């Protein structure tokens, strides 16, 4: 009796084992395409044998555990590579947009800059031509627009960064909540103490870690109760045991149009953790903003300020078609200053650019310390560039701008200074009439027709038209002067006032025929122009210097303006406008290039780690098919055992009848 009963029991255990195994196989087959699924396997054990005189008789077996094929190291590698890969992917996608735009002939600044200066040459070629002047104004206008277009494109990129950040943060929070909930389920799962784990829940949680790492770099720490704690930044827990903690979206303390990542430290307060966030899409977005969008917008603004400042300065030294002194050609708005939202003092600060040659592309932070001293920090490298000083403006100016303050600050107040960014946004045209283009030089030198010598007079340049000699009466020099050589003594001259008549400015000075004469400088006259007399003037010769009234065909100033294209008047006299723009392109190009290379490398690494994980944990259908056959056969065999036991029993009954 014991014989058939044992065989039946053993056969049934075989049936059960095979059923379990077949259901594991079917679970595997079903989830073959589920991302993050780990194939499951069973641990099979034999039942305790029964002792008999014939020795220990086996009692069949049972499935002791169902486990997943899983490698902690490979999973961690996958998480890391996912975070890096998404970081570079996002970075590259955004950077590529800028890269394409900046060098594009239709949207880049370079072609607009070149057309503008070509139009300058056009006016120089034919100063009285209204069409040439029209072309200059049109090209200037489209250059101004181009500055605006690129600026706006950057702004819209920043808006997309803001938008994407505000989409990602709730997503991260919801994943964190799911992980916390899974932690609770896993910790409370029965059998955990005996090493029987809820495989599918663990897979799901691992997959959620992979998902969250697409958004931000995380560190995880397994707890004794089976929970997994998840940290971002330098240890901010977003999941701790069964609780999740939200990241928040905050506005920048200075510029409310900029969003930052906050971390809820209590129900009422949160800390800005933007600078701590690394990796993933969030990390990429934050880096893009600080490494690419901000500096480029600043650099672009710097070019706008420099073009405006240098072109205006030269344009004011010219004379227009109406014989008036040139006015400003372009206009730009003031530099941006943002007081911190939590400033307590009444101080307001204004930043004014003083030298576009010295500007950097950084933003600055002006802080007030406990002793009410001001300090200025350059944010690109956090270097202290001015202060501490009891008052602003700092003397001397630093970094090409000056700060003026009104009202009293309170200790701890701070201001963000953006000297250059507003340039491209606010640039506009002042001149709208072709006749206002100041192509001519406002001073003329004339060699008297009765001169007997061979002396010549040439215009060295006009440097300053704000002095009294230009401003006392419009369209005339006050005084108009003449250099008159003595009628008897060779190479001796007077500088006389012609209009209004006045005492001689210089009497009896000696002319050196080998070096010539710089009329203003050599005589210390202090006028804002210079005329050079050269050659061999004769006795009684006369050179008249007057306002270039009606000198409309002169192109002297336009040649100077055209020359600005090739003048290194930016970045401490090391770069032309176009050089400066090129450096932006190089910067973006290099970053994009780097990101592209890193992206490919990370993709390869990610694929490798995916492959490695799949290799261990993935389901192979052929393998499952073979297993299925294997367990099917075992099942059939066990069923046969039961059938045989049944037959044995029948034989026994029949024999006893």
């Amino acid at each position: 009796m014991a014989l058939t009963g044992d065989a039946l029991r053993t056969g049934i255990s075989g049936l059960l084992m095979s059923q379990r195994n077949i259901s594991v196989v079917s679970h595997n087959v079903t989830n073959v395409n589920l991302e993050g699924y780990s194939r499951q396997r069973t641990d099979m054990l034999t039942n305790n044998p029964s002792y008999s005189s014939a020795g220990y008789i086996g009692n069949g077996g049972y499935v002791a555990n169902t486990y997943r094929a899983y490698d902690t190291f490979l999973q961690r590698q996958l998480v890391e590579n996912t975070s890096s890969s998404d970081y570079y992917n996002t970075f590259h996608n955004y950077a590529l947009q800028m890269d394409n735009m900046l060098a594009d002939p239709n949207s880049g600044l370079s072609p607009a800059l070149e057309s503008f200066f070509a139009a300058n040459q056009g006016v120089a070629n034919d100063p009285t031509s209204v069409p040439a002047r029209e072309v200059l104004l049109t090209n200037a206008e489209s250059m101004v627009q181009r500055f605006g277009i690129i600026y706006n494109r950057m702004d819209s990129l920043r808006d997309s960064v803001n938008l994407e950040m505000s989409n990602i943060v709730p997503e991260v929070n919801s994943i964190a909540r799911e992980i916390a909930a899974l932690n609770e389920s896993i910790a409370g799962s029965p059998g955990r103490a005996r090493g029987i784990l809820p495989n599918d829940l663990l897979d799901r949680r691992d997959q959620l870690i992979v998902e969250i790492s697409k958004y931000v770099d995380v560190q995880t720490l397994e707890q004794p109760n089976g929970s997994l704690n998840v940290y971002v930044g330098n240890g901010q827990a977003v999941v701790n045991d069964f609780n999740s903690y939200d990241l928040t979206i905050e506005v920048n303390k200075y510029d409310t149009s900029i969003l930052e990542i906050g971390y809820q430290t209590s129900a009422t307060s949160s800390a800005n953790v933007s600078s701590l966030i690394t990796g993933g899409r969030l990390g990429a977005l934050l880096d893009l903003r600080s490494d690419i969008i901000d500096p480029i917008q600043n650099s672009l603004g710097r070019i706008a300020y420099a073009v405006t400042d240098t072109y205006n300065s030269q344009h004011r030294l010219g004379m227009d078609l109406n014989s008036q002194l040139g006015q400003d050609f372009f206009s730009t708005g003031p530099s941006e200053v943002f007081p911190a939202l939590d400033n307590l003092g009444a101080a307001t600060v204004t930043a004014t650019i003083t030298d576009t040659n010295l500007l950097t592309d950084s933003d600055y932070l002006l802080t007030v310390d406990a002793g009410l001293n001001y300090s200025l920090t350059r944010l690109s490298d956090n270097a202290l560039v001015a202060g501490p000083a009891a008052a602003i403006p700092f003397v001397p100016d630093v970094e090409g701008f000056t700060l003026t303050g009104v009202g009293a600050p309170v200790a701890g107040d701070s201001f963000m200074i953006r000297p250059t960014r507003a340039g491209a946004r606010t640039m506009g045209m002042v001149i709208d009439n072709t006749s206002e283009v100041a192509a001519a030089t406002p001073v003329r030198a004339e060699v008297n027709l009765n001169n007997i010598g061979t002396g010549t007079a040439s215009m060295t340049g006009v440097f300053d038209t704000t002095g009294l000699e230009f401003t006392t009466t419009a369209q005339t020099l006050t005084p108009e002067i003449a250099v008159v050589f003595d009628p008897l003594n060779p190479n001796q001259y007077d500088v006389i006032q012609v209009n209004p008549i006045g005492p001689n400015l210089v009497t009896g000075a000696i002319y050196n025929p080998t070096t010539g004469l710089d009329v203003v400088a050599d005589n210390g006259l202090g006028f804002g122009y210079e005329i050079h007399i050269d050659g061999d003037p004769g006795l009684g010769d006369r050179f008249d210097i007057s306002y270039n009234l009606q000198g409309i065909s002169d192109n002297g100033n336009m040649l100077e303006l055209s020359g600005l294209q090739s003048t290194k008047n930016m970045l401490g006299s090391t770069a032309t406008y176009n050089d400066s723009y090129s450096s932006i392109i190089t910067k973006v190009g290099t970053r994009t290039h780097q990101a592209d290379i890193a992206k490919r490398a990370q993709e390869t690494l990610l694929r490798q780690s995916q492959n490695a994980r799949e290799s261990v944990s993935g389901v192979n259908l052929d393998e499952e098919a073979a297993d299925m056959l294997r367990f099917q056969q075992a099942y059939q065999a066990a069923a046969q055992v039961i059938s045989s036991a049944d037959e044995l029993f029948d034989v026994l009954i029949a024999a006893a009848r």
Partner: protein
Amino acid sequence: MRISSRQYTLNFINNLHDQQSKLARTGEQMATGKRVITPSDDPVAATRILSLKESIGLTEQYGQNGTYVRNRLQTEESMLEGVTNLLQRSRELTIAAASASMSDQDRISTATEIRARLESLMGIANSQDANGEYMFSGSKGDIKPFSFDGVNYLYNGDDTARDLQIGPNYNMTQADPGSEVFMRITEGNGRFFTDYNPANTGSGRINEGQISNITLLTDHDYTITYTGIPANEFAVFDNSLGAAVPGPFPQGAPIVFDGIEVNVGGAPAIGDQFTVEPSSSQSVFATLDRLIQTLETPKTSAANTAKIAFDMDKSIIELDNALDHILDIRGRVGGRLNTLDGQDYINEDMKIQLKSTMSSLEDLDYAEAVGRHDLQLVGLQAAQQTYTRAQGLSLFNYIN
């Protein structure tokens, strides 16, 4: 290595993506003909390309400026050629009219002809370009440069010569001011000129004089007076110093003082005066105008004939000076045109160099790209075929 079924498909898809993106990139390169499409393709080359583009643009601009200069200079040159012809004809007429045998009537008709020349000369000097800008008024382009106020010929422009940039740091004068072309013509021999006092009553006639010693020249005004005492002598007075020049200066011998040597021929009356003044400049219009006045003056007396003869000689010298001056200007214009040709050559050469450098940085090697494209196409096809073949293989197919 163990391969999971999912991994097999994923790897294939990744592979396909890679192949397709490479193919797309090669396709884009071939369509644009450019190796560097965005700066990130090659940031260093991209920056170089940008600066090369600017240089090419500038060089082309210099070329255009050169064309402007050339057109203007060629126009000036053809005008000056006209001026030369006018002056040459006037000179021939003057030499003919200087002959003692010419009647007053003949001289008046010569004067009429020269007046016509003067008028066409004024026409040339006051010409305007296509935009209505006066060509010879310096920077005062909308002011008629030359006018006659009934007594004098006036220049209303200024001395500004317009420059254009035709090369890096190379400006060339595009337009000479009228003062330079028509007004600043040497008087006399360039250091001094002689004249007579219109009140002279004798037939004494001073010659144009010559420089006897250039180092002694003073550029002073002198008056030479025939005093007749003692012994037919001349007295020379330095007006600039207000002092007499020590003599004696006997009649018949050359009068030599302060580096100047003049001769007074004929028979001066006592008290007749002649002057020696430092040369300044005069206009070609004044020269012709004075010539016309001389030609229109009838010969009535010996004194008057001597004055006319002096004036005719002087006119011929002035016309020679004017011709020399215009030729000189034409020479300068021709020189500039020559330099311009050279500069054009340099600019073109520069442009070719810049373009070839840019091409080597930016342009695609088509032969290489076509080969690459074909290979990538083959790769893609192979990947697709392998997948579809291998995809059908599964053990489940054999279980029934």
